[in-house]
């Protein structure tokens, strides 16, 4: 039986998983949007950019016009906003710095050299276009994922990392779909959505329905095999929590986090694809709520157990 790990490190790993995934997903989303804005002669850049800010949960002044430059400076290059690509990577790096002894050297070097390279990549991107920056981020995230898979034991530490990654994926997929609902006339077309989720090719291969909204939503939410679908990520998160519960000595205590994730997984598993589109708003609210609740429950259960230290007078003195 595993002996548990330091709560502080478990928390750091969980957030490394979340932040790297966030950087990756954000890079895909921003790339797809910027591409779309550039290509669409009829679209309204201001509205499209606003919808992007909304997806990514970054506030923006409703009165000043928003342009591609705002997207780049605030959602891509901002170092202080952990919801921006650069900020998320720096946050992952900072967590890794404090958890260096539980990730492999190669994973550390990957994050560290990525951080060291951000400045040069940004200069490169101002020369040749922001797509090169997004490509860099996606490649480094993929490298990190590969190293995570291949260079550390798939033990408790790994489970926390994957758990964080899965929850972030669910959250980002839900946010992405939410953008369709925010303001339908400004929102991207369905194919852009697929592209932003990195799902275009998999979808086309799996489906014969073309750009049918119901098929696309079903794919992004319910597909059993596509690794970025909400169902698949919930499944992975559920398995992580199962492993963590089995490994722990507190298996008899109620693990609220697992219940939350398991319930969401089951709800998606038995959702009727025919009604997914009509229930979309409800489903997305449910998923976002699930992510937020699970995050709090995981934090309380694994990372921040409170131990009361009794203060007593010294005996026998």
């Amino acid at each position: 039986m595993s002996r548990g790990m330091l709560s502080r490190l478990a928390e750091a790993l969980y957030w490394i998983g979340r932040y790297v995934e966030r950087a990756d997903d954000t890079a895909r989303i921003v790339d797809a949007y910027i591409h779309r804005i550039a290509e669409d002669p009829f679209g309204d850049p201001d509205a499209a950019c606003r919808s992007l800010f909304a997806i990514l949960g970054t506030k923006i002044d409703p009165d000043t016009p928003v342009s591609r430059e705002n997207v780049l400076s605030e959602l891509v290059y901002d170092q202080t906003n952990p919801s921006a690509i650069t900020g998320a990577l720096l946050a992952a790096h900072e967590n890794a710095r404090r958890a260096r002894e539980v990730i492999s050297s190669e994973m550390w070097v990957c994050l560290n050299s990525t951080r060291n390279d951000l400045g040069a990549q940004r200069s490169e991107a101002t020369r040749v276009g922001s797509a090169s920056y997004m490509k860099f981020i996606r490649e480094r995230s993929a490298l990190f994922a590969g190293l995570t898979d291949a260079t550390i034991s798939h033990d408790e530490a790994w489970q926390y990392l994957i758990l964080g990654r899965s929850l972030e994926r669910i959250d980002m997929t839900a946010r992405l779909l939410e953008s369709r609902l925010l303001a339908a006339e400004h929102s991207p077309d369905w194919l852009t959505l697929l592209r932003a989720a990195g799902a275009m090719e998999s979808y086309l291969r799996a489906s014969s329905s073309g750009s049918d909204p119901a098929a696309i939503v079903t794919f992004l939410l319910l597909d059993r095999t596509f690794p970025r679908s909400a169902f698949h990520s919930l499944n992975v998160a559920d398995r992580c929590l199962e492993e963590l519960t089995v490994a722990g000595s507190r298996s008899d205590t109620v693990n609220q986090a697992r219940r939350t994730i398991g319930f969401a997984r089951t709800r998606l598993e038995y959702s009727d694809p025919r009604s997914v589109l009509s229930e979309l708003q409800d489903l997305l609210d449910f998923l976002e709520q699930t992510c937020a609740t699970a995050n709090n429950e995981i934090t309380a259960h694994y990372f921040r157990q409170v131990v009361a230290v009794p203060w007593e007078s010294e005996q026998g003195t």
Partner: protein
Amino acid sequence: MPRPVYKEIVDILVNFNAVDLRSRFDQLGRTFAERGVTFALGGEERPFPLDLIPRIITAVEWGELAAGIRQRVLALEAFLDDVYSHGKCLDDHIVPRSLVTSSPHFRREAMGIDSDNASRITVSGIDIIRDEEGKFRVLEDNVRIPSGVSYVIENRRAMTQSFGTLFSHHRVHPVDEYPARLLAALRRSAPEGVRDPTIVVLTPGVHNSAYFEHVLLARLMGVELVEGSDLLVLGNNVLMRTTHGERPVHVIYRRVDDEWLDPLHFRPDSILGVAGLVNAARAKTVTIANAIGNGVADDKLLYTYVPDLIRYYLNEEPLLHNVESFRLEDPDSLHEVIEHLEKYVVKPVDGSGGKGIVIGPQADEATLTAMRKTLLHDPRGFIAQRTVALSTVPTFVNNHLAPRHVDLRPFAINDGKDVWVLPGGLTRVALPEGALVVNSSQGGGSKDTWVLADESEIAREAEVMRTNAARLLSPPVNGAFRQYGPDPDSSGDQ
């Protein structure tokens, strides 16, 4: 003229052209930047530049040096045991009682704390220099929380990667044994009756200048790296907070200074420490390594008494000499030093990292005047040493080789039974021309330090390898090797 041992190295390097050398030098720097081998100075992360040319120590020289360090550590260990229990050396007037009680690092809180199995100086770093006559001398002792061993390990790794060819002409003692030795010593130091001790490295956290080292050691020993907030003391037992609840901790290799270690006994504002740690150590449920209060043994004034301590405790003559030093509480010495301050090096007794040192020959008049005043006011707070012309070693500076001053910090591990000295140690080099302070925080770099193996060892090793090679391994199995699909070159498409 460099000594003959450097000839082969220099010969090899001469064959590289300047551009090639430069690129390899840069590669060393890059390797470090990628791996995050840095030290923090004033909040900024900087690499600790590694020089291309190793420092070389012959087997014979090393044998003498290691024996001298071992002797010194044993004497200091005996002294600390004595000072924190009966104080015999004070009763016998070997060391004045006032020296101990006035030492800023003497901890009354540690009186009577005695773990059954542990040494007090589990890890030490004795700073060594080579004087004008080529003789090794002890510059200062570091027996609290000496740092730098990570650079020894990382320097070697970087050198073998970038300059593998240099190693082909020398048989160099490996340095990677250190973590295993330290782990073994820590395990041995566990409280009585604990069979499988849980060992942790306690770090002040990610902003400490030696954080990189704490991580490296924890990782190479396979133990947890904890911060103060990861630990708590319940009923005199130290526990760490894990995802499976609280787990007992038995040995703490701490890299937190005494005064931050336990807010109940030392600084109450410390958030780096653990409340109740000192009591737990006193109750013998946990071993703290290095022990609390070791600083009285590396007080610079005590340094001047170490030769006497060696004679007193070990009944041996010191193998390594001190640098000639003056105790300034003696009026004649104080007078001499104040009169000729420009000839001496003055150091605060409790300083480290080169802080507060005044080097007479290089100081301006204002500094000297201020120092004279300070000395008159606080003679106990400083010692004076003769200025030693540190030995120089060829060093790669601005694309060519130049002599630069070096010192050496070998690391020793005392597991309670014996003292083992890591063959090599950290060679620090003062990069500005003529500079004598070699500290990393003052524009220093480092060199990989090679202790050459002696010939008989080499022969023995070779014999073992020959025997092993004779037991032939079967060749690897290969499957069919066939290429599927169209030849990528012949296809126009991607």
